[in-house]
């Protein structure tokens, strides 16, 4: 019985990974960035770069999003909100840190009000250095992340069985 059972699982696995790779809905969180990277992220939606051809759509609510695009050297005030936004996102979620100050604090290293870099607060999947990275570099980062999900090098998240019954 389990032979056919995990055969069916394999097909479901294939289809769900295909769907995840082809429709990564994104949400953007600015945790203290100078908004140079944010305008480049917004620029990727506009006609010249148009990421909708990859299925990437910017969503307002973390509930609808799979990819958290985060910019800025997490300031102490934004740290709590960044964590909350991350927690609100449903399972298989990914984080992309855009911009040098998101990855290493960039030019703000040593300022008193910043935590430093995003992967100290959240587990980050893709890093896109640049100050700010070009829109094409951001698309290149997301394409690498999608390739990473496609061949599933990242151990599949233990999708909690059944529906989450919150207390």
């Amino acid at each position, binding site marked *: 019985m389990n032979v056919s059972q995990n055969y069916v699982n394999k097909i479901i696995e294939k289809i769900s990974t295909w769907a995840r790779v082809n429709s990564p809905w994104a949400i*953007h*969180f*600015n*945790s*203290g*960035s*100078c*908004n*140079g*990277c*944010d*305008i*480049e992220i*917004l*620029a990727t939606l*506009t*006609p*010249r770069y148009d990421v909708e051809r990859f299925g990437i759509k*910017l*969503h*307002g609510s*973390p509930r609808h999003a799979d990819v958290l695009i985060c910019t*800025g*050297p997490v*300031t*102490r*005030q*934004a740290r*709590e*909100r960044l*964590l*909350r*936004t*991350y*927690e*609100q996102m449903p399972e298989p979620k990914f984080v992309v840190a855009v911009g040098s*100050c998101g990855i290493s604090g*960039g*030019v*703000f290293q*040593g*300022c*008193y*009000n*910043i935590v430093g870099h995003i992967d100290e607060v*959240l*587990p980050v999947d893709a890093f896109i250095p640049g*100050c*700010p990275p*070009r829109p094409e570099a951001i698309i290149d980062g997301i394409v690498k992340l999608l390739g990473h999900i496609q061949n599933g090098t*990242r*151990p599949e*998240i*233990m999708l*909690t*069985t059944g529906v*989450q*019954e*919150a*207390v």
Partner: protein
Amino acid sequence: MTTEIHLQRAGELLAPFAKGTNNPEVNRLDVKIAASDLPAAASALTDASWGYLAAITGMDHGLDVNELEALYHFCEGAAVTTLRVSLPREGCPEIPSVSAQIPVASFFERELSEMLGVTVVNTPDPSRLFLPDDWPVDVYPLRQDFKQEQAASVQPDPTPEPGRVGNKFIVPIGPQHPALKEPGHFEFTVDGEIITGARMRLGYVHRGIEKATEQRNWIQNLYLLERICGICSHTHTSAYSQGVEKLAQVEVPPRALAIRELVAGLERIHSHLLWLGVVSHEAGFDTLFMYSWRDRETVMNLLEELTGNRVNYSICALGGVKHDIGTEQSATIHKALDYLEERIRYYLDVVTSDTTFLQRTRGVGTMTRDEAIHFGALGPTARACGVNRDVRLDAPYGAYKRFPVSIITDERGDLEARFVVRMKELLVSCFTIRTIVDNMPTGEIITKFPRKVPAGETVSRVEAPRGEAFYYIKSGGGESPTRLHIRTPSLCNWTSVINKAVGHQLADAPMLIAGMDPCFSCNDRMVTVRRQADTKTLSWFELREYGIKKYGQRK
């Protein structure tokens, strides 16, 4: 009304309170006054409608001198009058509030009190402006004896979950919100759809740049200040380098000044087109957002061609400019400007004739000229209400004397007028860039700049796309500044937006906020989630650990 007459008139107005006056620079007048008669001096200036309060700079002169100093800068045209109030450093220094006469001062006072520990007596809102909630109470970052370890995070009093106050409803528009491309916090108390009260909290983008400038040398500060705001980065570098060059008495070649003005014009085009797109996205007119950002790419290509980067161009260097803009680039500039001018005229027509768009902008957030002056609005937001204040004309700096700019004002004062003012400003910028490129002064583009800047202090004012950016730079003669105070234009426009939001629909709130083109803002909106993994129930704290732990060991 030249600067001398302004300064002389200010001297007369402040004569009864003055403890000592001096003129550090040709256009500046310093007046030492006692703390007690500060409100009287401030109202003397405002009643005679002498200029506006540009900024309040707090300074700590150090343990040995045991003196704090608060500088109230008033600007009228090119003249800058500074009221200097010195306070004891120990005990708890007090200063009376001036926000009764000048509403915008309440922001500056909040910054002064949380950064330097000066308690401002009867200020309307003593709560924190920039520092995070978990900042210990009696630690003041801009004092000279501030150590980073003192600022360990303290458990903040739990922020009340904004919900229902009486029968009113609080709608938080939060740090993560599609309307704000930056983290900003607004709490609108809503009665049905009508806004009855508004409160805001900044601080999510506060990185502590003013303190960081004191640990970096003059050259490194250039790049730190450029990243205060990604859209008007050139404003900050040109204001900073202009001030430092004034301190070091270095003569910048005219060609470099002309190139700086040219790049400032290009930055204004890119910033206003970006703003046009963001506001129309918030109004729900996505096509205009897509078109304006598509045409903005022409300016971005031009900026990349001339300076080497689309955003944060770093073309300003101390003593001049890094890249030369010569005749071979002028052809590409002219071609790009032809296309841009035609598109800007088209947007000016769309913004003033599309019925559904006008229903969202005409008559929304209308502000009269006196309200704008009273609330201290700056830049295009103020010029849309008829206030003709523009630093490029009042106090022409750099090459603006040689290539002047004409001022655009509008009488209506509503959101539509702000669109019209910004679009016409772009046409003026295009014209100025063409004149600069056509008769670009000759000469080299950079001069030698000493690594140590002689002691002194100066004020540098520049017209950013959003309004006047005010810099106060003080050098102790070393390799890095002793005090650098920056007042960005958006800080002044908040008061007018918050007071104007009352009475409007909730749907207009994002439009009003974006209407003044905020440079930084934020809030929290999340509902707490307790998730039950298979068997055990996770508490809130465990949930966070569970999340990080599960993904943590993946790497």
